[in-house]
């Protein structure tokens, strides 16, 4: 990814303004998807059902990614997200069974927090290598959850040593008038309008309050981390803890808080899997979503917007390929058009080499789309991974992690 800075400041400003306005990008994106939907005649691309499934598939990854964001912004690499998530699934099951779904979510957060505490004690207080501790937490999380399930769940109604089914889900919201109206419009399959209507329908029909909560947490995290002095201090611990300490910031405290919140968020992600994405706990149900969240966060450039884009892309493409393998073929056209549009932007910025490279890639995908009728099944599973990588690699070309991320900090080392 070469980026040359030959453009004059004035032109750059225009492009920056354009590319920064998410509204435009969103609208162009929806227009593009709508166009592809009509050309390829795959209504599933923007069907309300697909979007609903995409939201559900996104949330656990998003929660884990947010967890990663909090920890890494404070300079602690948390690859224990997966383990904390697994603990969260168990916590959600246990507390929901006894006290209902909302206490269950709190329980999921609590169990995740315990995982976070372990990680914080190991990495912050004792200076254990972050990766070593993270791997240990993944093993501990999986082992503990399996052990606790075997020890406790068999006696419960709907339970067994490996699962606890029939958990009560958090409230679902439907806005009657809007939902029906949107449904009517969506069914007309008009260009653009029906796609927007599908979105509205998915957002107003049986949407889980927990989904809304997870999306709200992205905004809350962004505000707290970037708009408060608390957030500034926390991030300073991830950029330059020595400097932070000389300014009187209690580095250990902030790192602890960040890692605890990180674990709790991952736990909530696990709780979502057990309560909303399915109706019960089963061992191994996280299936690596913690790692995917971590990857979404990294490719999202350690920014809330970026990780949201990553999680959404992954969730959308994953549910798309699950629902309809044929639609993956239509996705090729979408990727091709996206690449060509991006190449045009590159050309506008006079980044010739980049523009040529992306154009060639775009044309190659377009040729693939035109010359085939379907994507081989073996490839469809990779769709979410490849697409997410594509989108985020193009979106953020220069990744910059917090400067002191993953480094062990000892109190007083500022000298």
């Amino acid at each position: 990814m070469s980026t040359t800075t030959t453009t004059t400041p004035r032109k750059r400003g225009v492009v920056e303004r354009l590319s920064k306005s998410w509204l435009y990008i969103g609208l162009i994106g929806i227009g593009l998807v709508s166009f592809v939907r009509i050309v390829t005649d795959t209504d599933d691309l923007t069907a309300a059902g697909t979007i609903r499934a995409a939201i559900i598939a996104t949330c656990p990854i998003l929660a884990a990614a947010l967890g990663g964001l909090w920890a890494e912004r404070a300079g602690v690499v948390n690859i224990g997200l997966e383990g904390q998530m697994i603990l969260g699934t168990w916590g959600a099951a246990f507390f929901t069974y006894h006290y209902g779904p909302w206490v269950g979510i709190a329980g999921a957060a609590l169990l995740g927090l315990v995982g976070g505490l372990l990680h914080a004690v190991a990495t912050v207080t004792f200076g254990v290598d972050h990766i070593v501790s993270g791997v240990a937490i993944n093993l501990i999380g999986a082992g503990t959850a399996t052990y606790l399930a075997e020890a406790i769940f068999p006696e419960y109604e709907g339970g067994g040593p490996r699962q606890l089914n029939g958990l009560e889900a958090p409230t679902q919201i439907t806005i009657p008038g809007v939902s029906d109206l949107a449904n009517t419009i969506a069914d007309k399959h008009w260009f653009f309008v029906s796609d927007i209507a599908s979105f509205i329908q998915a957002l107003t029909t049986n949407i889980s309050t927990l989904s809304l909560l997870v999306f709200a947490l992205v905004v809350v995290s962004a505000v707290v981390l970037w708009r408060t002095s608390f957030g500034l201090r926390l991030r300073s611990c991830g950029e330059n803890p020595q400097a932070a300490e000389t300014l009187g910031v209690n580095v250990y405290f902030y790192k602890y808080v960040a890692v605890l919140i990180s674990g709790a968020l991952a736990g909530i992600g696990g709780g979502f899997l057990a309560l909303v994405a399915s109706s019960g706990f089963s061992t191994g149900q996280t299936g690596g979503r913690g790692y995917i969240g971590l990857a979404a966060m990294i490719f999202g450039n350690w920014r809330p917007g970026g990780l949201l884009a990553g999680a959404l892309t992954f969730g959308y493409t994953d549910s798309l390929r699950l629902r309809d393998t044929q639609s993956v073929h239509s996705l090729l056209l979408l990727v091709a058009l996206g690449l060509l549009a991006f190449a045009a932007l590159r050309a506008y910025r006079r980044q010739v080499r980049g523009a040529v490279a992306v154009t060639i890639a775009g044309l190659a995908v377009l040729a693939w789309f035109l010359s085939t009728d379907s994507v081989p099944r073996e490839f469809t599973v990779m769709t979410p991974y490849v697409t997410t990588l594509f989108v985020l690699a193009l979106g953020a070309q220069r990744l910059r992690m917090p400067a002191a991320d993953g480094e062990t900090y000892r109190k007083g080392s500022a000298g």
Partner: protein
Amino acid sequence: MRRLTKLSAVAAVAALTLAGCGGSDSEGGGGDKPAASDDVCKTADGDGPKIGLAYDVGGRGDQSFNDSAYAGLEKAVDEFDATCIEGEATDGEAESAREDRLRNMAENDATAIVGVGFAYSESVNAVAPDFPEVNFAVIDGFDPDEEANDNVAYLGFAEEQGSFLVGVAAATKSQTGTIGFVGGVNNELIQKFEAGYAAGAKAAKPDIKVEVAYIQESDLKGFGDPAGGKAAAAGEFDKGADVVYHAAGGSGSGVFDAAVEAGEGNFAIGVDSDQYLTATAAQKPFILTSMLKRVDTATFDFAKSIDEGKPLVSYKVYDLKADGVGYSTANSVIEELTADIDGYKDKIISGEIEVPTKP
């Protein structure tokens, strides 16, 4: 630095211990767990054959495949005064771990060892020649090389025949003319389910449409992903299917959830064991039937052959005729269809209908 090393060592040891408690061989640790207390292998002390049962991922308590094998074992212990040892695979373990588990059992004097699940095929093939006096069996297994092992039995099932019957049920029950299938992993074994199901549906209603989805193409985690199962099944219900059959192991509970959300008039079909019996109260009315795969029969049969001194070897297929597969009638909704289904069943047994094994 020294403290760091010590701590990571402690963390690693703690991790291993806990991971050990969670899964793997039940011979070590965790004996006071309530689940383990009703484990027949803990109390059996007869002088019959010693049977080793190596579970697949999921292990005892999966309310499906592995539990069915355990049921067969329990019966064998009961009838032949057998004793037993158990072991369980963990997700993503190395091939050598499976071999070690089998070797461990053989060295602990097991005379009959059953690997539950096709994933044991390779490891049994590697271990069996070293223990010529021990008899092995692999449920759903196959011989991976040319050389035949004379102490290994491959116990297969005619899943396509059982799937054919539930396909008939699905097509007959369907009002919309569209039915669905959700497979856990797109491999040859699960394709047998799909092929039989589609053939049965077409036999009952030639113009039926069958939507097919697989959660994973090759990654075995597709059998333990309820969220993925729910998304795949919801997609099929959205496309107009009103009966969805799953062959997705633990992901199946997500398929049942999807049927519940699709509402009245929609159904799901279970697999391997009678899933109506283990489903939650909310799911029960939506479970039309289950394709039964009698792993318990096969396990018991193998133990019996050992007890009689005429151990099973080579391939054996448990089909409709041998009562190795079938369908459940636990939900009364199925009653109006049983005459139809049993008609097809007789035709399959008599050979009049030949069920395909590939879609």
